[in-house]
């Protein structure tokens, strides 16, 4: 299936925007020379031209209209009558994947600061697979809740220990995957909402740094921005990045949910001067991200590498992976205990993880889903007796407050989301992240598509989204009779018999 929607829309809209002006001229001429009745058309077109000019140049809150003019307007009209249309003609509201309209609409409403209450009942199908949270007979008073606070690095007692104050952070998205406007809007939103943003593995975080938010620097397997020419760690460069005031933590990406066990290739056509400089790679060559860090070929070398990063950066340092084999994970933990080198946090990425581009079979068929992996990781850490010495971040489609609290109940300490924040930026799930044609200017570097993404406006929506999530967390926690997210346990989640999540088992590989 190849769609050329964005390219076509661009050409069509250019023609249409000029066309209505030409038509107005023609109608005017006809009204003057043929019959005055043609001026009915002139007037109608004049009003359309006026409103179109406003959409193109006078407003900043609707990216599609700013980029293309009146042509995509039917989208807004159809969307306003959409629930009926879809219900009768197309997919149900809860059917769409990866995110159903119900899930997306909640984020949109939160980001715009609109009340998100619903009437007449939930649209979810509880008889099948939905996990639910358990409330208490004895809710606590919201005012008695402890403020959210997770300290990363405190177990090692380092003086760069970082306090996370918001239960939801912006997950790894690099400059490269996202355009500069999107990165800056997210960063400014993170600053407004006082949450943390992950830089992704895109090298020196130039655009992430611009807005003054706290950052987690991610180091992928190619170590962009902190690599030597042959792709090994350049300690001096890492120390320089870690010394930046805004960089608060380092995340070593061992694997990611969308393509666990696979590296990547950045084709030389995409290596612009700026990308080459930020990522520290040569111009005119394909850049290969290996499937694993060159330094990490077994448990011992991986632990040694983690220790080295902690030493060089002086910051709380963690690892990110998508769980494959629990026995390997346990062996890695045992090696960590032997060497007395523990990461300060572990990011568990669900096998459903999203990304700009990954081979379909990797996206579909590899890696444990988050709600299976999370309790397993949590339990293995408990069994090894080191659960209290590190913090767990969880990521994988955690875009709603309920899902985030389920993750927190199943073992996580803080939730991460990437795509939730893309929706807050105005993502319409056009599924073109890998084509540089994103119609709402997020995953594209084309200036004319980024034009409509107003940084100030979207940053406010990002902040609104975080605030609304935080508000819902507080309400849910109170209803569950818990005074802090730390008190959440597996007991707080109801698991239906046929749920995708099964009680943690460590099956033999």
């Amino acid at each position, binding site marked *: 299936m190849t769609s050329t929607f964005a390219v076509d829309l661009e050409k069509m809209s250019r023609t249409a925007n000029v066309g209505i002006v030409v038509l107005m001229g023609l109608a*005017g001429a006809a*009204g*003057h020379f043929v*019959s*005055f*009745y043609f*001026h*009915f058309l*002139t*007037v*109608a077109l*004049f*009003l359309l031209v006026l*409103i179109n000019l*406003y*959409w193109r140049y006078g*407003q900043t*809150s*609707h990216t599609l*209209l700013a980029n293309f003019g009146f042509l995509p*307007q039917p989208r*807004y*009209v159809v969307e*306003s009558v959409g629930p009926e249309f879809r219900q009768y003609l197309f997919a149900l509201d809860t059917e769409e994947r990866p995110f159903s309209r119900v899930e997306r609409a909640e984020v949109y409403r939160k980001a715009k600061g609109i009340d998100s209450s619903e009437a007449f009942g939930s649209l979810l199908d509880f008889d099948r697979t939905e996990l639910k949270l358990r409330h208490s007979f004895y809710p606590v008073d919201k005012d008695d809740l402890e403020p959210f606070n997770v300290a990363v690095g405190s177990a090692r007692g380092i003086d760069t220990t970082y306090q996370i104050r918001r239960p939801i952070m912006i997950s790894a998205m690099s400059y490269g995957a996202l355009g500069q406007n999107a990165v800056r809007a997210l960063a400014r939103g993170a600053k407004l909402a006082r949450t943390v943003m992950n830089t992704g593995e895109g090298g020196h975080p130039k655009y992430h740094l611009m807005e003054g938010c706290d950052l987690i620097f991610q180091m992928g397997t190619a170590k962009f921005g902190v690599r030597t020419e042959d792709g090994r760690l350049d300690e001096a460069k890492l120390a320089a990045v870690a010394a930046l005031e805004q960089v608060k933590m380092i995340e070593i990406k061992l694997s990611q949910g969308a393509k666990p066990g696979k590296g990547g290739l950045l084709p030389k056509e995409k290596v612009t001067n700026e990308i080459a400089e930020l990522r520290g790679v040569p111009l005119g060559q394909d850049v290969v991200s290996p499937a694993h860090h060159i330094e990490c070929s077994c448990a011992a070398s991986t632990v040694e590498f983690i220790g080295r990063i902690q030493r060089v950066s002086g910051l709380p340092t963690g690892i990110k992976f998508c769980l494959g084999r629990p026995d390997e994970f346990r062996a890695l933990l045992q090696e960590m205990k032997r060497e007395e080198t523990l990461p300060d946090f572990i990011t568990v990425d669900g096998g459903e993880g999203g990304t700009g581009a990954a081979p379909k079979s990797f996206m579909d068929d590899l890696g444990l889903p988050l709600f299976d992996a999370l309790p397993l990781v949590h339990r293995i850490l408990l069994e090894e007796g080191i659960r209290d010495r590190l913090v767990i971040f969880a990521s994988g489609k955690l875009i709603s407050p309920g899902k985030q609290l389920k993750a927190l109940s199943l073992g996580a300490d803080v939730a991460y989301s990437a795509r939730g924040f893309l929706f807050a930026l105005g993502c319409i799930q056009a599924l073109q992240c890998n084509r540089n044609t994103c119609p709402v200017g997020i995953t594209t570097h084309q200036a004319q598509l980024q034009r409509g993404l107003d940084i100030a406006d979207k940053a406010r929506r990002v902040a609104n989204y975080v605030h609304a999530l935080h508000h819902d967390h507080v309400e849910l926690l109170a209803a569950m009779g818990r005074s802090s997210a730390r008190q959440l346990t597996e007991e707080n989640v109801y698991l239906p018999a046929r749920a995708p999540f099964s009680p943690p088992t460590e099956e033999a590989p």
Partner: protein
Amino acid sequence: MTHPRLTHAAQGIAAVLLLMAATMKFMGDPGSVAVFTRLDMDPGGRYLIAVIELTAAILLLSPLAALGSVVATGVMCGAIIAHVTQLGLVTNDDGGRLVGLLVIVLVCVSYVLVSRRKEIPFVGSTL
């Protein structure tokens, strides 16, 4: 930016003037007939415009005032086109009185249009 009371006043003024204009057109006022004859639209166009003006006036006094202001703005734009391209600013030796009224209505309905733009059907949510 816009004041609700001013918006209501503008709606009232515009509606009254539009009603007067529509009545004159329906009654076959000699001035109206002369104007529409010069545009080669009499009597069909005269009645058509009168009906539209009446509709706009009623809408302006109803909860659909935003829609009324769109319709009225359209009619006023058409009238301006007529005066600029064919009739001239002084019609029937009135010293520009007709054009003056036209401008007053246009200012009023433009004000209503701007202050109630969010209420315009279909496109309002994006304005």
